[in-house]
């Protein structure tokens, strides 16, 4: 069995798990819950196996081309974290791992209905974006012992931030009393835009001609909707989006009843939200910023060059630093501080995907 087959199985398993978690919410049946967890664990094990197999494959490729490297160095050079495809797979792996830990810790399986769609959608996104799945030769800039640690810790950080985002989304939905609250309006827009972009990318994919397949995402991003050559479609997309956001704003409260029915409490969500940030922030600071700076200094001759990736990491860092100070020193609580968690994750998405896909810079290999 090769790694891509295993990846396929894990993607499939996550989709099934997502459906089973959702039906668990509907039926509240214990057997269904155990099934959902089992499928997730199975998918996770497959993904772990796939990652390891890919690691072995790229280790062998590296050894074949540079036989004089020591074993440990070759292991580090083989780490499957070298391009967009591999990093997304790893991101999903971190996310599922964190989810499983939380399911175990909070003994609440309903959260799976929110976590697994993110994992499944991210894997679907990998398919949609047409990024290369080949094991690429390691470019000289990435041949450093820092690669594994820098990327590994950054992604654990990203995944922790993603969890805090999900918790903040659910928290604001639960805590908002009226539609005229600022936090709730912001919530509608942020969640709306998030979903709209995902849906629009799905449409891009369906609309993509076979010839364009394998093309880089930048060339067709939102071309089927907002950036369509037909003005009618573009205008229509904007109108539909506005309607979508309005609908989300109008009916978003429904989520509260669902969450209450799942014995998810506001206190629990708030705790998940800030605890994930309290884990993600130090790891991201150490792995992303500090190790990144040290590596940059040995590779590029400067520890900080205001490269878009660096800058966006710093922006994200500023936002979460603001979150921590607002919460622990400024005494902000509840919705007010959760809005910062939403904004922080927008920073994360830009740092990770936005920069890779739309801005060029020293980190451009991340976008291939």
């Amino acid at each position, binding site marked *: 069995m090769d790694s891509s087959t295993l990846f396929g199985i894990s993607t499939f398993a996550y989709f099934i798990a997502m459906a089973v978690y959702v039906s668990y919410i509907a039926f509240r049946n214990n057997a269904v819950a155990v099934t959902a967890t089992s499928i997730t664990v199975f998918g996770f094990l497959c993904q772990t196996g796939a990652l390891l197999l890919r690691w072995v494959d790229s280790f062998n490729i590296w050894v*074949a*081309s*540079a036989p004089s490297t020591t074993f440990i160095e070759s292991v580090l050079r083989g780490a499957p974290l070298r391009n967009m495809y591999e990093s997304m797979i790893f991101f999903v792996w971190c996310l599922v791992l964190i989810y499983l830990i939380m399911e175990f810790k909070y003994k609440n399986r309903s959260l799976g209905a929110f976590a697994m769609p993110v994992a499944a959608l991210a894997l679907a996104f990998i398919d949609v974006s047409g990024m290369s799945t080949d094991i*690429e*030769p*390691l*470019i*000289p*800039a990435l*041949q*450093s012992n820092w690669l594994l640690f820098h990327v590994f810790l950054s992604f654990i950080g990203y995944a922790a931030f993603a969890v805090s985002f999900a918790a903040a989304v659910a928290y604001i939905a639960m805590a908002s009393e009226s539609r005229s609250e600022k936090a709730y309006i912001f919530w509608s827009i942020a969640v709306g835009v998030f979903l709209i972009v995902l849906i629009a990318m799905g449409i891009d994919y369906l609309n993509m001609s076979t010839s364009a397949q394998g093309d880089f995402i930048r060339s067709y991003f939102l071309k089927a909707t907002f950036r369509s050559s037909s003005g009618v479609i573009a205008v229509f997309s904007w109108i539909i989006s506005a309607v979508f956001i309005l609908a989300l704003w109008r009916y978003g409260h429904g989520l509260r009843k669902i969450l209450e029915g799942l014995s998810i409490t506001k206190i629990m969500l708030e705790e998940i939200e800030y605890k994930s940030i*309290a*884990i993600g*922030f*130090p790891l991201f*600071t*150490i792995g992303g910023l*500090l190790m990144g*700076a*040290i590596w940059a*200094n*040995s*590779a*590029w*001759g*400067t*520890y*900080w060059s*205001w490269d*878009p990736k660096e*800058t*966006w990491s*710093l*922006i994200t860092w*500023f*936002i979460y*630093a*603001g979150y921590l*100070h*607002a919460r622990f*020193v*400024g005494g902000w609580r509840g919705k007010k501080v959760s809005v910062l968690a939403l904004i922080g994750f927008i*920073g994360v998405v830009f740092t990770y995907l936005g*920069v890779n896909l739309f*801005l060029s810079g020293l980190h451009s290999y991340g976008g291939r």
Partner: protein
Amino acid sequence: MENKEQVNIFDGIWGFFASVKLAIVLLFLLAVTSIIGTVVPQESPKAIQFLGKIFGDNTAPAVYNAFLKLDFMDMYHSWWFVLLLVLFCVNLTVCSLEKIPRTWKLVKTPVKPMAKNVLETLPVKKEVTLKVSLDTARDEFLNAFRTSKYDVKEAVQEDGVQLYSEKGAYSRLGVYVVHLSILLIFVGAIIGARFGFDGSLNLPEGSSSDVVYSRTGEQVPLDFSIACNWYKTDYYKGADAPQEFSSELVILENGKEVLKKVIEVNNPLTYKGITFYQSSYGIVPDAVGIFVLKVSNDRGLEETLRLKQGESFEIPGQKIKGTIMDFSPALGRDPQSGALTTYSDSLINPAVSIRFDMEGSDGFTGWILKRYPETGIIKDAGLKVEFLDYWGVEYTGLQVSKDPGVIIIYIASIVMVLGLYAAFFLSHKKIWIRIAPVGKGSVKVNIGGSASKNRLALERQVEHMLSRATAAIEGRLKKN
């Protein structure tokens, strides 16, 4: 009167900088303004192109001028961004100074026995009644407490005993350690900006230089000279993907070689505080290269030759003459016609065409490719010609930098890691265990605890301690 007013102004300024609100506002402003530089290209020609695309050719110049005034094309060094950073530092310092005394008191104040009614209001609390004497209970709880690596103190009270302890008090200072490390980073950056420089140098193979060039194109003299012996790009087998860029550099002092090193990406050369990084490469225009060939045969002959185009060489004893006819920096086959073509000006797949003339036969011409040594095997003659290098046409592009602040950045990084660890993963834990006799031969045990963070972990620890002590007491009772 005047003096008092001055004091008030000072207090006002201090108060302004001591506020967390200011910190949040500054973090927000830094985050928002930083975005500008990632969107607007930080070089004029690119910025002009970018603005033209967005605003159209008519309004773009006006926007460009406005951007120029606001330093948007070099915003991270603009006065207003630097001002924000300075305010951020002052805010950080004042806030920390304001809070450190209080925290220090919390750290230094030893934990004291606690009244029962207060104990019952603590975030972590447990209560259990045990059929055991006060002394036994005391011993076993003391044991359990110590096993969890607490330095336990004991107070005898009128209605029993109290065991109490604390751990990790210094973790409360973690946040200030992080703040300090941020200030250190700024110190490092300032030292780097003041005493360091950034430059570059394109050094052709076989040449040397005792100056480098700053970003603005000015010459910066070195007090030694640096030479490049060779530059090369290694490719992965069978692909045009580069595996490594490397150059052999030599440091010369008064014409004498003092240091020689092969540098690669991620592996620079440092001499006298100046570091040379492999950053690019290229072709020297109009340069005439030298073909470095290694000729060997099965009779033990091995010879390295250095020749120019058109020159010939002879293989001794074999009466074969080779002449260098042609060169291609990147020889490939046209995918349509199948004919040989040169597909790039860079030395991606260098190949040399050599005509071999032999006595008594017609001779032949063939291409020998550097990356494919098997192309140089001439079976009939038992001869192997390897194309080692086309030397002297490439230059190595070096990034040159001197930054005495880097060491401080490294120290700051270590300090920050320690600070973050203390601030986020350690907690100041306090535990009180109150044991009081109730009725005949029974004691009531009240445990209370507080933690500066991660209450759940403390709760688990307290439960663990409780179960260990009760198990030990039950064990004793059984023995008796």
